[in-house]
């Protein structure tokens, strides 16, 4: 029985990739059959913390992501729990068919951790942005898609992902994220977190857009609008119950995500509500474009991933009721 805390020390304010690396090293103690697969980015993804501790369980494939994802399937077929650590776009786009054919179709126990996701590679430009990963990964049957909003959710999500039998894509981010939870967080795959109760509109977000959604909630309150706020750390399977309750009880929804507007959380929520309880759904997301070059935060602002846009979207959704 593993008795140690799964939480590394002092993670509040730490870079998300750093949290991932430290948490993975602890998971290595917890699971003897956990192996790490990297593609010349073991240092950069910070999985190096695991690799330093368990060199015999760490495999660098060089810049050969397609081989790496297929090899992960091979490890899983022989009883290992492979954790693939790579930039999000390389898992979801470069190795897309390997993920679908070798991992999801046979439903193998592979954990794929995408780092440097969304616009977190800012000046790296479009080649290094991961703004389609959620759309691609959630389209595969058998796949679970998780995107934590802070260091504590990341640690707990990684723990749950490793315990979950089957393919998981975990969108880890790169730099620091504001602290929202604590080490008492309860994380269950497919369950959202109710961060604020409200009756007029529901803001649903994951990852880097959860903190802006919380701030938007404050501004809306100053305008006498009570916004319910949900963190959907799991994007697939979606917490349908919480979202349908939100549709029933607040009558309007805003989604916010650091991802292209096509194929992300917004479309998932809109598809669900359209089927079960049609309500106005406004989406704050990247407007089907490539985002170019710039520092991470200004790039987010330029592409509309702002508190102000969430506030405006909430008002518009309410007006459409």
């Amino acid at each position, binding site marked *: 029985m593993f008795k140690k805390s799964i939480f590394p020390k002092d993670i509040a304010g730490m870079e998300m990739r750093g949290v991932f690396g430290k948490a993975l090293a602890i998971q290595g103690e917890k699971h003897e059959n956990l*192996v790490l697969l990297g593609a010349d980015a073991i240092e950069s993804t910070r999985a190096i913390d695991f690799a330093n501790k368990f060199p015999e369980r760490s495999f660098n494939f060089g810049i050969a992501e397609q081989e790496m994802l*297929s090899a992960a399937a091979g*490890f899983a*077929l*022989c009883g290992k729990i492979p954790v693939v650590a790579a930039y999000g776009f390389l898992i979801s786009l470069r190795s897309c*068919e390997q993920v679908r*054919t070798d991992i999801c179709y046979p439903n193998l126990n592979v954990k794929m951790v995408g780092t440097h996701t969304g616009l977190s590679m800012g000046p790296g430009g479009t080649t290094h942005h991961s703004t389609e990963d959620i759309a691609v990964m959630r389209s595969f049957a058998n796949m679970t898609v998780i995107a934590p909003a802070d260091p504590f959710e990341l640690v707990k999500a990684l723990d749950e992902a490793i315990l979950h039998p089957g393919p998981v894509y975990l969108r880890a981010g790169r730099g620091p994220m504001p602290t929202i939870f604590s080490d008492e967080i309860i994380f269950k795959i497919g369950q959202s977190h109710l961060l604020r109760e409200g009756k007029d509109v529901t803001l649903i977000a994951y990852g880097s857009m959860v903190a802006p959604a919380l701030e938007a909630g404050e501004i809306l309150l100053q305008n006498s609008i009570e916004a319910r706020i949900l963190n959907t750390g799991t994007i697939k399977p979606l917490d349908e119950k919480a979202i349908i309750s939100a549709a029933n009880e607040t009558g309007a929804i805003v989604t916010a995500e650091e991802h292209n507007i096509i194929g992300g959380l917004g479309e998932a929520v809109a598809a669900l509500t359209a089927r079960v309880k049609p309500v106005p759904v406004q989406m704050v997301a990247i407007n089907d474009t490539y985002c170019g070059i710039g520092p991470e935060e200004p790039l987010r602002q330029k592409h509309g991933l702002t508190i102000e846009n969430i506030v405006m979207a909430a008002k518009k959704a309410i007006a459409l009721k």
Partner: protein
Amino acid sequence: MEKLDAQQLTKKANELRVVCLDMIKEAGSGHVGGSLSAMDILTALYFNILNVIPENPNYRHRDRFILSAGHKAAAYVAVLAARGFYDMNLLKTFNKMDSPFGMHPDMHKIPGCDMSTGSLGHGLPVGVGMALALRMDGIKSKVVVLMGDGEIHEGSVWEAAMGAAHYNLDNIVAIVDYNKCCMDGPIESILNIEPIVDKWKCFGWSIREINGHKMEEILTAFKNLPDQRGKPTVIIADTIKGKGIPSVEGKYSSHYAVCSEDMLNECKLQIDNEE
């Protein structure tokens, strides 16, 4: 099971050619050419070379086999049935609604199948992962991956070729079913893979070149492996597309084809003449 010798294997492979063609005839069409070019190798693997237990298909210490050229499934599923993994009668369902057997194998539906395949260039990288995991656990099993010749056009094959050599995986054996035909035409006209031996050699592999239809040569190729300690081995098997039906042998058009009654009879006649 007693291992079959070369003569018995030839006879078994010929029987299974007829079984396989009968399946394809019943289904309407199928991958005739590649199934027949790989039939001798597959028969030798399952009736002599591989350590597998049909009654316990997931036996941890078994040898692993990946049919990376998944479109040769008609031959593969016939061989597995004959080896006792499931009832031969099930083969009648090939390609039919809800059959366990389609054009490409599904590991969750076919007892004894170690990996679902069909899209080319996936088997060798999966095999690399298996070989690394088995070695970690001190399991002496070998991992055998059968690829088509056109399949090695895929870049992922060469990623894995580098990976296997880098990790000194002498527990992996790749087979290239070199029948010299792609779907669109002769391989040399589509994308030439020569000099194939030099390519594998410079990627750090040991090479064994054989006639893929001569059982003695197939069996010898698997003796005394690894060929060189610390090196993966590739067997380049010189084969004939459509082997066993004289009128289609060597023709790329047999890649995916209808199997007529005449073709089936031609195959049977050829076998009778040989015997």
